[in-house]
């Protein structure tokens, strides 16, 4: 199952390659689905990481994930999973 010869990797035109870093992905996800508000995200850049951890914990709780408050593998995987566009929190 594992390829022996090195694989040529091609960049395909028009491919929507997500250039978001994990942190940017997390922020946009938490914002889009209502787990964080603009202010909380701004606060994070003011070295208040508490707000991101709080929002992550809120998301992990709602989605039934392990509540670590960290951007761990299963949380990132959940953020990339196909889903409904309706926010989880708020209007």
């Amino acid at each position, binding site marked *: 199952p594992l390829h022996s010869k090195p694989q040529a990797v091609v960049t*395909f035109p028009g*491919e929507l390659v997500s250039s978001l870093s994990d942190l940017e992905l997390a922020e946009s996800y938490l914002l889009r689905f209502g787990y964080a508000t603009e202010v909380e995200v701004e606060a994070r850049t003011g070295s208040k990481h508490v707000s991101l951890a709080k929002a992550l914990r809120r998301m992990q*709780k709602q989605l*039934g994930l392990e509540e670590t408050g960290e951007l761990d593998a299963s949380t990132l995987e959940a953020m990339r999973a*196909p889903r409904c*566009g309706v926010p989880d929190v708020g209007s």
Partner: protein
Amino acid sequence: FLTFEGDLKWDHMDLTYRVINYSPDLDHSVIDDAFKRAFKVWSDVTPLTFTQIYSGEADIMIMFGSQEHGDGYPFDGKDGLLAHAFPPGQGIQGDAHFDDDEFWTLGTGIVVKTRHGNANGAECHFPFIFEGHSYSRCTTEGRTDGLPWCATTASYDRDKKYGFCPSELLYTMGGNSDGSPCVFPFIFEGTSYDSCTTDGRSDGYRWCATTANFDQDKKYGFCPNRDTAVIGGNSQGDPCVFPFTFLGQSYSSCTSEGRQDGKLWCATTSNYDTDKKWGFCPDRGYSIFLVAAHEFGHSLGLDHSSVREALMYPMYSYIQDFQLHPDDIQGIQYLYGRGSGPEPTAPVPMPTEEPQPTEAGSTSTTEEEEETPEPTAEPVPVDPSRDACMENNFDAITEINGELHFFKDGKYWTHSSFWKSGIQGAFSVADTWPGLPAVIDAAFQDLLTKRVFFFAGQKFWVFSGKSMLGPRGIEKLGIGKGAGRISGALQRGRGKVLLFSGENYWRLDVKVQRVDKGYPRATDDVFTGVPLDARNVFLYQDKYHFCRGSFYWRMTPRYQVDRVGYVKYDILQCP
């Protein structure tokens, strides 16, 4: 469950819906049927009724669209956001929108519904045999008019049943031509076109003229997607062209060459190296029925649930035999009441001839089976001489009480990714589960009652803590004598577990301890791409793992193999 702020709900029970446009991925009738079944999910448990109307303003307006589609909440291309809907109310409230950059199916791959021919609109059967050759796509072989067709049974040579596949040469959708087929070439803005085009449109839908001159006659229609239509890339909807050249090599089927994510793609011209036109090949796609049932839940006033198995859970996962979860039923009945639907049937009593457990314990099955007490954590002696990392394979692998258990020749090791404590053991099977044989074939834990089922040869045992039931013959479960070694199990939720043996699997109803009707089924039909002679099959971190030799194939709940690796290095994390 959750409802929207203020318990938004409809002020009348007889609701109407209207499908404004259709995805080219599926035949109209397949989409209409899926939406009808999706509404029935809710009308079955409430007094609500749903009527499709074909003009004017309906309570629930349904549309397909891509990216920004008119409501200020844009979609995001393939995957990611699949759809959204608005809570009950006037105007856009209650409406449901579906992202047409997704590949819409019934959840298990492309649905190619035929027209005309002699099969009454049946779906294509892939592969099919024609003149001794096997076809896994529509073909124009045997015809001079270039119309793609397929057989609707496994062998055209034998059954002579066929139909014509979706193509712009057969019909168009929407537009102003009552479904007439495209006319090629046609003139548009002075240019001649000999295939469907997205020119002149901003929504990416492929269209064509249904007369030779659009500039003059203004007659047009939208092109249905052919069975080899690509998804995304830079040629949405165009058919693959086989063979095509890529990096100097010729390909006559979809390939994952050139990619690191393993996704299958193809070129939509004969030479990718020169033309750079490509797209993804049809995958299993998303079930329009399941997504629609979820979105209609929003349209009726339900918000997202945090119960993973609930329909209103926000993340998509394909379920084969869908049943509304109690959490969803409580939510919708909180808003609209029960309605005249069937009363919930009483639980089927456990088979009486089951021997009573040797120890005093619960013998009657209550409405909610009592959860078996955790086995008291008596210290179990460890044999440090046996190292799991030295084993080439294992008799059985399964997760028990949150820890992966690796069984081999009467010993077992545990590994917990949660406690980061690495591999524990080797422990003795006989110490923990007295009465079990040294070598077992498979095991699984019933998530509801925490009982552990063990299989060895043609027998099985059921442990509730230390108390044992069995051995009993697997034929008591309804598994035929011909079935060989049970190789593993996958818990499916709602008291169902899939048992694998050879190239087949059965679905066990754990409560009544019988396999459901309609089984066994061929593993390859659903779990495509995994070894059919897997030695172990188990559920771990919500993904299906199939092991053969020292390798494992990991499959997502959407039945896509997303990793192949080493059991020892990737799962056991041996140095």
